[in-house]
């Protein structure tokens, strides 16, 4: 594989980190996350350039969600370093500084598997709230922008509906609009379609495809192999907390290097 073309630097235990920073927008090095004795993330390094789309695949329990949650510090790594844009943090087990965490989160938006919409707020209020409270936008401006984002995900008509009045696919699109309205530089998607019917999931994937085409930097954990293959620029295979293989999707899917990757792919692709 051509290392120069590989900005996804994810060697499991390798120490070498070439071309650190440079043009990478996200730089994670030697991240470790333990839950008790269990190493959910076991020395993962990753660097992502602006506009890239990364897919994380791997068996259930491999640590995909945990890795995403480390990237916006919803979980605090036990060790390692993380930089998103100009916000950098080093983790060594001591309590983290809130301001640093917030600086990283301000760059990121997250879309959850279970949507996590606020049930007591209408669609447009869901999208507007953080704009007003965090970015200090006026009510009118927040609403205008919220409507624009809802329009973008094809839900202008549902602006005043409450989450319970929306289908699962619509709820997830509201979730995407809510994250986008904060103008994030990095979007994190945690299996955004796995709670949905395949047909409805396709609506979401269509939205994500557009985001990718618009040059949004994205990391997504997904079980949608076709989508990972055709939309993402780079694919990482995670097993037991480590990234065991990474590369261009065509290469990972058609000529996997690792035996474990082959077994995983044959199980999910049924071949």
């Amino acid at each position, binding site marked *: 594989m051509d290392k120069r073309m590989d900005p996804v630097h994810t060697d499991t235990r390798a120490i070498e980190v070439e071309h650190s920073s440079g043009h990478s927008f996200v730089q994670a090095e030697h991240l470790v996350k333990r839950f008790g004795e269990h190493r959910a993330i076991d020395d993962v390094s990753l660097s992502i350039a602006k506009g890239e789309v990364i897919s994380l695949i791997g068996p259930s329990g491999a640590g995909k969600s945990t890795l995403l949650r480390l990237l*916006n510090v*919803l979980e605090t790594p036990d060790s390692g370093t993380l930089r998103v844009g100009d916000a950098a943090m080093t983790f060594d087990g001591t309590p983290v500084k809130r301001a640093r965490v*917030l600086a990283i*989160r*301000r760059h*990121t*938006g*997250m879309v*959850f598997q*279970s949507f*996590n*919409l*606020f*049930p*007591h707020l*209408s669609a447009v209020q869901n999208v507007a*709230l*953080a704009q007003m*409270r*965090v970015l200090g936008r006026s009510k009118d401006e927040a609403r205008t922008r919220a409507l624009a984002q809802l329009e973008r995900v094809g839900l202008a008509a549902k602006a005043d509906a*409450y*989450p*319970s*009045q929306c289908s699962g696919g619509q709820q997830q699109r509201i979730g995407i609009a*809510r*994250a986008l309205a*904060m103008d994030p530089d990095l979007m994190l998607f945690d299996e955004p379609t796995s709670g949905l019917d395949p047909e409805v999931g396709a609506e979401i994937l269509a939205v994500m495809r557009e985001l990718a085409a618009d040059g949004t930097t994205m990391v997504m954990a997904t079980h949608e192999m076709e989508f990972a293959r055709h939309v993402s620029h780079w694919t990482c295979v995670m097993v037991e907390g480590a990234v065991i293989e990474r590369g261009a999707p065509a290469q990972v899917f058609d000529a996997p290097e690792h035996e474990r990757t082959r077994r995983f792919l044959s199980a999910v692709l049924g071949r």
Partner: protein
Amino acid sequence: MAEAFLLIAAATGATLLLTVSAALIGIVLGAPLVLLAQSRSAILRGIYTVFVHVVRGVPALVWLFIAFFGLAELGIVLPALASAVLTLGIIAIATMAEIYRGGLAAIRQGQYEAGWALSLGRWSLAKDIIFPQLFRAVSPTTATYIVGLLKDSALASIIGVPEIVYVTGLEVQSLGHGLELFLFAGLIYLALSIPLGVVSRVIHVRLTRRYAVL
């Protein structure tokens, strides 16, 4: 007889006064108490657990006697009404804190995570996300509890607060007709609790019409 009915009905005011004061004390002071339960410090959580278990583990009558006879022995002489409000109020604080705790537990972790992922500050997370959901989640339980307080307030008759049961007892003593008069007293409680139940159901339906609570 007619006069007895009137006197008993008039005592409803004292019953309502007891109920409403205790409810307000509990609703307001239960909130800071539940913060102890949410604290990161195991000691503060322990204090919460002990307080709640001790207050709710002893019958209200015991607390009432302690507040009325016991405190007097220590030189703190409270009027009967004040003793009753104090007793019911403290029990209400512990109960409301438990109700709030249940409501908080019902709010999914994902709600907090969504707030954090959006960089919402602590205050905004509490005010805009958690509190509105908590309020809706606890309103039916709270209404049920207030009806419970209405009935518990009858205890105050034992130390001579002139509420419904006390006045009824006096009238029965002088006139007899125990069955009619106590049934009448019971009807007042039913009459008070049924509308409270209806009102709370209406409020709850209003609040949650547009969305499933959780």
